[in-house]
């Protein structure tokens, strides 16, 4: 499906989605955390979209919002899509987990939790993946400071 067709199809499912194709080679959808899980489930299960391959899940600190970017691909239709979700709460950011939709999300979400401190609801095993349990702070956030280990140029 072309980006336009995708946009018209997906916009009919859930209101208040933001679509954008600027500054990116993919179609970007920005969704609120409340609608994320519903949208993702539809994207996977709908026959026309069938985004069954989550190939990248990255946490991003947009300052001040924190967010997660999902790169999706369909292995049958070979079209790609980017879904972005942002939350303004830096103290206790929470986003629904997509583990039940794509199993690969389990490790990727643990990584995001580890480095950005975003908590994923309904995640089966949400604990730190790379860092030790007693590590303070979330290193990939932009406001993280560590005078000993970080060399700033």
């Amino acid at each position, binding site marked *: 499906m072309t980006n336009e067709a995708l946009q018209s199809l997906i916009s009919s499912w859930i209101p208040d989605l933001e679509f954008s194709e600027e500054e990116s080679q993919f179609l970007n959808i920005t969704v609120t955390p409340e609608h994320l899980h519903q949208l993702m489930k539809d994207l996977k299960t709908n026959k026309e979209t069938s985004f069954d391959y989550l190939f990248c899940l990255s946490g991003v600190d947009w300052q001040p919002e924190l967010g997660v970017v999902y*790169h999706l691909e369909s292995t049958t239709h070979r079209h790609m899509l980017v879904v972005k979700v942002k939350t303004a709460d830096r103290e206790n950011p929470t986003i629904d987990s997509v583990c039940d939709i794509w199993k690969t999300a389990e490790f990727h979400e643990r990584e995001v939790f580890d480095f950005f401190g975003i908590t994923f609801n309904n995640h089966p095993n949400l604990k730190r993946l790379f860092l030790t349990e007693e590590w303070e702070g979330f290193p990939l956030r932009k406001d993280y400071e560590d005078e000993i280990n970080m060399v700033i140029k």
Partner: protein
Amino acid sequence: METTAVKSNFKSEEYFINMGPQHPATHGVLRLLLTIDGEIIKKVEPDLGYIHRSIEKMCERDSYQQIVHLTDRMDYLSSHINNEAVCLTVENALQLEIPDRVQVIRTILSELTRIASHCLWWGVMGMDVGALTTYFYGFRDREMINDIFEETCGARLTMNYNIPGGLMFDIHPNFVKRTKEFITHFKTKLPEYDTLLTGNIIFQKRTKGVGILSKEDAISFGASGPVGRASGYSCDVRKHHPYSAYDRVTFNEALKTEGDTFARYQVRIQEMWESMAIIEQLIDNIPEGEHKVATNAVIKLPKGEFYQKVETARGELGVYIISTGTKNPYRVKFRSPGFSNLSLLNHIAVGGKIGDLVASMATLDLVIPDIDR
């Protein structure tokens, strides 16, 4: 060999065992927390981060030229392909026209890297199932590729030969000759791999029907590279999203449908043949021309988000760069193939024996710095 649960009055107890971080089968500093009942594996929980260097954070303070050499240190067995991924992202963002010569040379080097990586994997695979001699035969052939790299790029492993805009310097005059020598040599040696290990009945018993991964699970777990292709999931980035010179060569995507350890083994052996075919198509007609196009000394990417996927020896590597228009990237994310492939280890190892875990882990071909980044 299927194991049927024996009901008995004996009380059996599960216990934990720490496989790694210093264990011969984990190929590095991966730690697996195994829950075992006798010899049967109940749960595998990887514990990562023993060599995490936070390359993604380091990239945020580096310029775009400097990022490239960090990717050498991720998946060090396919360092050239990693470099290429970053360079392609930057070049696509700048919309640079890359000379044909550069693209062909990059492709040849990528395929050599893939063969070298698979040679090492083959040796280690044999070692993991107990045949120690394979290691040396694999290394013998890999050494020849490393010599080619050293002569042209100046280093054997962390080459850093790519720069945004092309190659750091032109290929060495001996490059073509040596590559051809290697191809003729390897064509006689690769069948030996089959006679020594593939056909061996013990090896087949150890690998067939072990660690089965279905196609649906492979896609859901984000498996890529030989792991995905062994499950019948066509995921070769070189076919579906061709980059560099892959659109001008013909090769077959090695596909198997069994999804077991032996299928993953066969896919990799098949890939070595395909890589040789690709090199043979390109090596005789490397176009003349410049080895790089001029870029600004300080590269500034336009504001936006850029994603590039390439096929490394382990699978799909994605480079995701968010730029705000300055000379440093705002956020760099590497989607490493090993990380996704590791996440399915628990799925394929449960119910098998310790020996099965080792065999399936060998065919996942994990490189720990790639996972830990």
